């Protein structure tokens, strides 16, 4: 995971990531620039990694941008990512159906390129408020008064349990 290879230097929140991505990969004419198709290919790759039915392409695109920002931090990484993405294009990855795409990724899952994409995309994708909403997570709560009056105890399919300690003596 990316977080393990170097201490995170800034927030992994999608907003910050997106800003970095915009600055980072524009105008680098080696295959990662806008119009190269790299963002779209990575977004497809990330959807195969983290498939969630009913979710729009937008968070996958944002995660792809985070991956591109990571790729463009170092020239060596930039070249390696461009080459790996070109391979995927040559192999027709985007046209593969879900099963074939999954099998293809499994074959390459030991590659450094794959683990870097997986690590960075996971951090960005599941830190995206649109994904949170899709999963049913409500995000920051303090400004809304917490959940004390908003359902912290609204589970109704089990009986209300005892909250005090057992008074039946020691073990």
């Amino acid at each position, binding site marked *: *995971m990316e*977080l*393990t*290879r*170097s*201490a*995170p230097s*800034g*927030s*992994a*929140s999608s907003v910050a990531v997106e800003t970095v991505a915009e600055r980072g990969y524009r105008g680098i004419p080696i295959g990662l620039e806008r119009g190269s198709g790299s963002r779209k290919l990575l977004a497809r790759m990330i959807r195969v*990694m*983290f*498939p*969630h039915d009913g979710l729009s392409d937008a968070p996958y695109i944002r995660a792809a941008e985070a991956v591109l920002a990571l790729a463009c931090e170092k020239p060596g990484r930039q070249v390696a990512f461009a080459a790996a993405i070109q391979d995927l294009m040559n192999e027709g990855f985007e046209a593969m159906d879900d099963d074939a795409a*999954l099998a293809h*990724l*499994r074959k390459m899952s030991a590659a450094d390129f794959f*683990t870097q994409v*997986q690590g960075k995309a*996971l*951090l960005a*994708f*599941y*830190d995206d408020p649109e*994904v*949170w909403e899709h*999963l*049913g*997570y*409500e*995000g*920051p*709560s*303090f*400004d809304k*008064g*917490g*959940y*004390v009056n*908003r*359902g*912290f*105890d*609204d*589970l109704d*399919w*089990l*009986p*209300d*349990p*005892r*909250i*005090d*300690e*057992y008074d*039946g003596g020691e*073990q």
Partner: protein
Amino acid sequence: MKRIALDEPAVVIIGSGAGGGTLAHELTRQGIECVVLEAGPYLKNEDYENDEWKAFNQMAWLDPRTTSGSWRIARDFPSLPAWLVKAVGGTTTHWSGATPRFKEHEFKALSTYGHVEGANLLDWPLTLAEMEPFYERAEMAMGSTHRQGRPALPANNNYKVFANGAERIGYKRYATGPYATNAAPYDGRPASIQDGFNFQGDKSGAKWSIMVREIPRALETGLLDLRPDSHVVRITHDASGKADAVIYADKDGNLHRQSARIVCVAGNSIETPRLLLLSDSARFPNGLANGSDQVGRNYMRHLTGSVYARFDKPVRMYRGETMAGLIADESRHDPSRGFVGGFYMETISLGPAFLAAFVEPGAWGPDFARIMSSYANTAGMWIVGEDMPQADNRITLSTTVRDHLDLPVANVHFDDHDNDVAMREYGYGKAAELYDAVGAIGHHRTPPYPSTHNLGTCRMSDRPEDGVCDRNGRAHEVANLFISDGSQMTTGAAANPTLTIVALAMRQADHLAGELKRGNL
């Protein structure tokens, strides 16, 4: 705020967490001036973020560390062996709040468990009876629920699943605490608003931490000189072998020397031994107070493991107090289960950002996405139990990586003991049984997170050759050097350690104050 001159030999406390912060509060309240050197910034409630990665990047100790050994952390998080806080208040900033006491037999691990192959067990030079008055004081300070008449927190959704499951498989000792977050207003702080962000620093102030209680009260005495952004790099000693000063770097890397008459080290169980190892000299060639070669050894990190269970109905585990649910039935010592020592089960919840990173590190694909898709219908528990001290589980100075000051970073070496593995497997099984009893449709066994309970490494012992400090935390070899954090724990017990760290610091403060008044220090 009090300013103590650099050339004034002061009581110097290194670290402002559960140990150092408690000590500073207790000493200043008894009229003793202190300097507290805290490596991190002074963050307050309003600074904390309701966002997992933002909060992590704001407060976690992110200085590099290295790892080795067979534990899975060395593979998945090689530069993040521990999840600790670098800020005023230390790791009490992000702790969740569970406050069980250690049990009588846990202070006598060697006598109770007998010889365990490969384990370096020892009895504490302290007993539960000696600790009880300090536990009482610590619970009062921290506002533990269920204690001294304080009310229980209400059942949140995650607890409802947990407690019903417990009842159905025959457990009896479950409750929403003891837990150091206010169920009702207490000690000038409000009741919980159940916002669910304990691990990110609690914005509301309902949760006890050193930052909300001990630091402001110590400052109010006018006797505390609190210096944030002050990273200690060496403790020096005089010709007689007594500690005489502490050298620290400010945030710009400039070095300062604070003269000291007493030095108390409370940097958590990785940085405390690292600092002693960095403070080597001709007199202490293996590191300060390390003639026994015990500094850094017997690193413990509690058993830990989590189980996340999926249901076909909503749970919304993230709403409410994260760890306000404990089961103590398995905390007994009962070798018929296949291991010595015991463990607690405690509710836990992560947001999607952390769950994705930690539920199964490195995982991806449809099975992983299914875990995440079930987020709203997921309940979670943490298994926390006693792990075996081992001589080679150890903090050493890295031979390859240096920090921003060009000092060797800590290497954390850890191998699971067979007893740890057996207890974890048993715990996973019981957790699954509990959730199945309330209709789980699937569960996932999550491996240990980067360590939050870091213990041992400068342990207490009666005999100098068995440890680093005595029953008061005083270094066997350096008369005015004290270990004031969880590093001094002889063995780790099953309980979450913060209450015991606070109680030990209170006890040490009484000892120090007495010795100072008697002119012995």
